[in-house]
């Protein structure tokens, strides 16, 4: 990314706030094994304890320490988000750039598949696949990436088509450069804002999906996940547990999604200066 774009980003207070928030959450997730006071898979504590010095958020119905569980669940969410975003963006960029550069039949096929994916509710497909194969988290990550790449590919393709007509790209072609070289040296580096944008929005969607799917019971129930924590907590509406069991995962999930949303909105502003929110243009 060019320095100018960084400066542009830094001007966006909400965007910077999002980055700071995300970094804090990221640190927490990375350090979870160190910070967590208990083994999150250890259920030897007394059941349904209220918060105390020993158990900051108390314990759940099986005797797990809720605070430790929360930290590990956050870790799962973030890892899931990052992996899906990385794979989705890679697929999207490769397909988008190659469709634009190669064109013809190949371009047509890729773009029609992208259109078709738009009309298929991702979540239903995931639920179905999850139900049939009881897949590991890795397989779910890949499946999700396979049905989410189309928006990235679209954006990248449009941008590549306009870059393709630039004289420096033609010049490289005239020197005898193969398509791969043009992709690597002339097209990909120009698309950085698109990756940033795609990465953040896809990470956001993935975090969203992970929480939702685990809430619905798609994941292995022994996984530490914000959605699973919420769904268990909801089984005890009569007890007074909502503030120490239900709210913490709700809060953590919201902070994570908010931070990603703020960043993605700020990046969009860099992309198209007309969207920048601090501009006051009297009309």
């Amino acid at each position, binding site marked *: 990314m060019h320095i100018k774009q960084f400066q542009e980003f830094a001007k966006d207070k*909400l965007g910077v706030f999002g980055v700071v928030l995300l970094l804090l959450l990221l640190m927490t997730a990375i350090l979870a094994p160190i910070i967590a006071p208990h083994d999150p898979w250890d259920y030897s504590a007394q059941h349904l304890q209220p918060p105390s010095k020993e158990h900051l958020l108390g314990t759940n119905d099986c005797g797990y320490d809720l605070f430790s569980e929360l930290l590990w669940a956050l870790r799962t969410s973030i890892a899931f988000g990052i992996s899906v975003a990385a794979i989705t963006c890679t697929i999207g960029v490769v397909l988008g750039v190659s469709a634009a550069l190669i064109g013809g039949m190949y371009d047509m096929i890729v773009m*029609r*598949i992208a*259109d*078709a*994916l*738009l*009309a*298929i*509710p*991702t*979540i*239903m*497909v995931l*639920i*179905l*696949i999850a*139900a*049939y*194969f009881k897949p590991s988290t890795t397989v779910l990550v890949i499946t999700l990436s396979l049905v989410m790449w189309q*928006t990235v590919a679209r954006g990248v393709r449009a941008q590549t088509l306009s870059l393709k007509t630039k004289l420096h790209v033609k010049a490289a072609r005239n020197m005898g450069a193969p398509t791969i070289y043009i992709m690597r040296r002339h097209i990909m580096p120009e698309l950085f804002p698109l990756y940033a944008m795609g990465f953040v929005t896809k990470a956001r969607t993935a975090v*969203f999906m992970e*929480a*939702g799917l685990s*809430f*619905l*019971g*798609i994941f292995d129930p022994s996984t530490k996940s914000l*959605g699973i924590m*919420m769904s268990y907590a*909801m089984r005890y*509406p009569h007890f007074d547990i*909502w503030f120490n069991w*239900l709210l913490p995962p*709700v809060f953590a*999930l*919201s*902070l994570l*999604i*908010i*931070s990603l*949303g*703020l960043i993605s*909105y700020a990046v*969009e502003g860099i992309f*198209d200066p*007309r*969207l920048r*929110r*601090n*501009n*006051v*243009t009297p*009309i």
Partner: protein
Amino acid sequence: MRNITVKMVTAYLLTILLLIFLNFLLQRLLPGDAIIAMYSGHEVVMTDELYAELVSRHGLDLPLHEQFLTYLSELAHGDLGYSYICHASTADLIMDALPWTLLLMGTAFLLSAVVGIVLGVESSWRRGRRFDRSLLAFMLLLDGFHSLVIGIIALAIFCWHFGWFPSSGAMTSYLSTGGIGHIRDVIWHLVLPLATLTLSMIPGDYLLIRNSMMLTIREPYVLTARAKGIRERRIKYLHAARNAILPFTTRIGVRLAHLITGMIFIETIFAYPGLGLLTYNAISNRDLPLMQGILTVSVILVLLINIVVDLLYQKIDLRVGYAY
């Protein structure tokens, strides 16, 4: 325009192809014995007769291409399979749930679109001012709440704590007050799921409209209209109509996907007896035929809505064009 239509039709056909591919192949790709895996819920006692019936019902004793033809003809006849766990035809189960989902989703879609358009237009018209900035910040914040989260908070406050609204169902069974009382009862059950689903959709609609307004707000015809002294609200909303409809139609697929996702969570949380809750129950019982049926129906629904909106848009676009 013709070119766009061809593209659309290709995409629709491909979507259906993808769907059939998923549904058909998943069954056959299943590791181990497909029948055992599909019907291994505890409520089903697998007798030899049942096993034989299932094998022939799914045509698993036929060669693959014949299986495929059988599948296609069943699909064409609206036969979506049989749920042995619920002891009912999948199509019937879905048809019972569908009206509630359509009521919930349709209303939420319209409400959030109206609110999103009005707020988005007003916000972009006052760009950079206090109103715009605070509204934008609020929407970005609201956008950060998962529909699950909004649902859970609403449930905890209004059902558990205050007990103002029912925490499950779409209507009270055996209600003796007919007519008006019945409608009031349905609305009373609908309020919370509808409010939370709408709330979870508004930020997306708002941001879409605000952005598209920002991109075109200084187009010559708007400035001309202003110069001519045409009333501000008229320009704002004529303009908005044109700009709002485009992103709404081109992104209708994405919007619907959001809506369906939100619907599943919210129906689950409020135990609202639509497709979402049906999905949740199918997951809990590992009722695979039911899940497939729901996927098929929801894809067809999305496609139908897409087609209607596309056609509608072509009409509206012409009229909006003349308005200037």
